[in-house]
């Protein structure tokens, strides 16, 4: 069943139950996301896609569109920006030397929301890294705890989780099962590294193979990829 909603006043037709963030993209409205990827289940962890729906702020990746919905994307822009700034202050996001620069979703979303500095105090947390697996390096300094790896990376044979969460709250960390990680194929390792929106899951030894100017989001901006699809 198709429904009518408005996005910043723009009248939009969509199928009932479709996810708001996708509907917006299909109609040329870019809403940044860090945990959500089109075609995958909603994780609802980063909240960076927060918009106003009938007056209430909601994460657009969690909202199935319903008839008559009035959506404001522009209004909570500063909230989205603040959430990105929170992430930059919470971890150690050293873009200058990070191999994910130019390929990092957090970084480009930072550009998209116009972040120059974080309004929150920079914490410089001390976090352990996991370097034991043969092919993968887990640089927890940069983890934004999006849960993509936890939910979507499984041991092909047993279906068990390779990445899990340890502790809770601000002490939460992603941990990796070394034995299972060492069973991952190079292909699976590459996919995991690409799944990670930041430079936390690294494929060992080949960090800077893409020259500046040819890095993923320099070739084509994330905004374009979202609005026009990865294909083109």
């Amino acid at each position, binding site marked *: 069943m198709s429904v009518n909603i408005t996005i910043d006043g723009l009248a939009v037709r969509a199928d009932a139950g479709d996810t708001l963030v996708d509907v917006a993209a299909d109609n040329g409205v870019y809403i940044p996301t860090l945990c959500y990827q089109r075609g995958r289940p*909603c*994780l*609802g*962890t*980063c*909240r*960076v896609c*927060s918009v106003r729906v009938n007056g209430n*702020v909601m*994460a657009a990746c*969690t909202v*199935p569109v319903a008839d008559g919905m009035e959506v404001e994307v522009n209004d*909570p822009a500063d*909230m989205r920006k*603040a*959430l990105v700034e*929170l*992430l930059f*202050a*919470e971890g150690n996001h050293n873009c200058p030397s990070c191999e994910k620069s130019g390929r990092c979703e957090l970084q480009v979303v930072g550009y998209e929301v116009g972040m120059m500095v974080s*309004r*929150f*105090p920079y*914490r410089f947390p001390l976090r352990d890294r996991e370097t034991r697996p043969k092919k993968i390096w887990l640089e927890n300094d940069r983890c*934004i*705890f999006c*849960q993509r790896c936890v939910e979507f990376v499984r*041991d092909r044979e*047993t*279906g*068990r*989780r*390779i990445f*899990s*969460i*340890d*502790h*809770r*709250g*601000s*002490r*939460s960390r992603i*941990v*990796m*099962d070394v034995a*299972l990680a060492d069973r991952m194929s190079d292909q699976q390792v590459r996919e995991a590294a690409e799944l990670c929106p930041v430079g936390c899951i690294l494929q060992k030894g080949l960090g800077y193979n893409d020259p500046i100017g040819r890095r993923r989001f320099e070739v084509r901006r994330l905004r374009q990829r979202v609005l026009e699809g990865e294909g083109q």
Partner: protein
Amino acid sequence: MSGLQELMRRHGNDRARLIDMLLEIQREAGYVDDQAIQRLAEGLNLSPLEVRETISFYHFIHDRPPGRHTIWLADTVIARMNGYKEVRKALEEACGCVFGQVDASGSFGLFDTNCIGLSDQEPAMMVDDVVFTRLTPERVRRIVTGLRAGRSAQSLAAVKDRDPTDSDFAAQLASSAIRQRGPVFFSPDRDYPALVEKLVTLLPEELIARVVDSGLRGRGGAGFPTGLKWRLGREAEGAEKYVICNADEGEPGTFKDRVLLMESPEDVLLGMIMAGWALGARHGILYLRWEYGYLQARLQRLLEEWQQARLLGADILGQGFAFDIRIQKGAGAYVCGDETALIESCEGKRGTPRVKPPYPIEEGYLGMPTCVNNVETLAAASRILEKGASWFRALGAPESTGTRLLSVSGDCDRPGIYEIEWGVSLNKVLRMVGAVDPLAVQVSGPSGECVSVARDGERVFCYSDLSCNGSLMIFDRKRDLLEVVEEFTRFFVDESCGICVPCRAGGVDLLHKIRLVRAGRATRRDLDDIRQWGALMHATSRCGLGTTAAKPLLTTLDRFPERYEALLAPDEGPLLPSFDREAALEAHRHAHRILTEDASS
């Protein structure tokens, strides 16, 4: 360790029962060691880290020895008003270790915990499986000496020879001061078989209509109409349906569910059976917070008695109605008060609130329609069955029918449980409880609002005004309100599950701000930040914990701005007051001092 295989078999090798398994292992071994984790992982087809994921989430599951005697002292605002600090110090001295540690001999483990539902008799602590209340330094010294001498916590609590399944067992440990009784709760001599008989003669639709008609709304705080929830549950499609009683009473300052479960647990069971009948569910889960462990044996016995009496089980009163109840023990997580987090916990996972929609009433426990009701809601429902909808509706206020239980604590002469009709004013309640010179009242605990007696005294308790979840903490004029605010803010940081950014990260920054204010290093800009960041958390967080975590700050800023302004730093000179120059330079002095000593030695 074939016992472990047996244990898993008993729980049907079902991952959803992981928490039960972990708690059982811990009961035997004191903690869950690596080997047990490995074995569980293999048996349940999980990675060992997935098992740790659950262990590390919960406060009361240990993966290393927590001491022969494990002591949990409740660190709450109310306890801090009643000598908590002295008690804490005495415990550290007596046990020979600081909090968060186990003493060298491995005899004592000292741990902090948040409110354990005894706010009218704090300071209070849990030692092994019993609780001690109204603590003083002398008392804790005596207790620790006793434990050293080889006495058990039970014998020190004078319940050694008591049967924990007796109805008055819990009363030996914790009093249930019911200061004011009312028409709905704690009514004596109810004929439960007759009531169940009456229930099954009604059509589920009739029952639902009656509850709708009564105007009963959820007592957990949100106030969702109970009848409507039951109707949605009935209409929802599902091979199975579940009824869950939320007895994870974690909101600091509330303890009325504990008292209900001590005084009239039958009301709660009956309410659950009603919900089961209404939905057409066959399974009920009573989710009992870990801190109320001393109620478990008695509740378990009650369930067995009712099964024997065929008030529960495969064929209730021969009417072909199958409904049974199991107790799911929590393991220490405030966030499990959120119904979806509670469901995750029932499935043996971390208590991470789910993304909504879908709502539990459509997809809940194991993906099936699930109706989660609060203890008090179910108890109230049981009286509606007995006395009828109009009787109930006649009580209270138009949109807020019936009565509600208040757990009153703080600066008043008579802390305890009060059953009030919706619609009474705050001032009236304050007089009722003997509040002396009250300044502020924390309504609904940290997640509620801090109101000013001067400005809000005439506001009334009802869903459209002072919508109270049962917690009422009173602070008089002598109290340092901002210490309370800091403590509440720390509580939310402590209890955040960490899944969403605003709550996980924002909470820490708010805590930093209130500490800045209390240190006299804040300016107006910092107060503006608190408002802005608080609004951010409120608007964007994933669950109720995050959306309310800033309320202690926001509501006191709104009601008691002068308390903040009095502490603001003069904003003059180029250096920001928040920058502590001397502290920043101390590190080098210190390094030079100790390192040159190193070097010369």
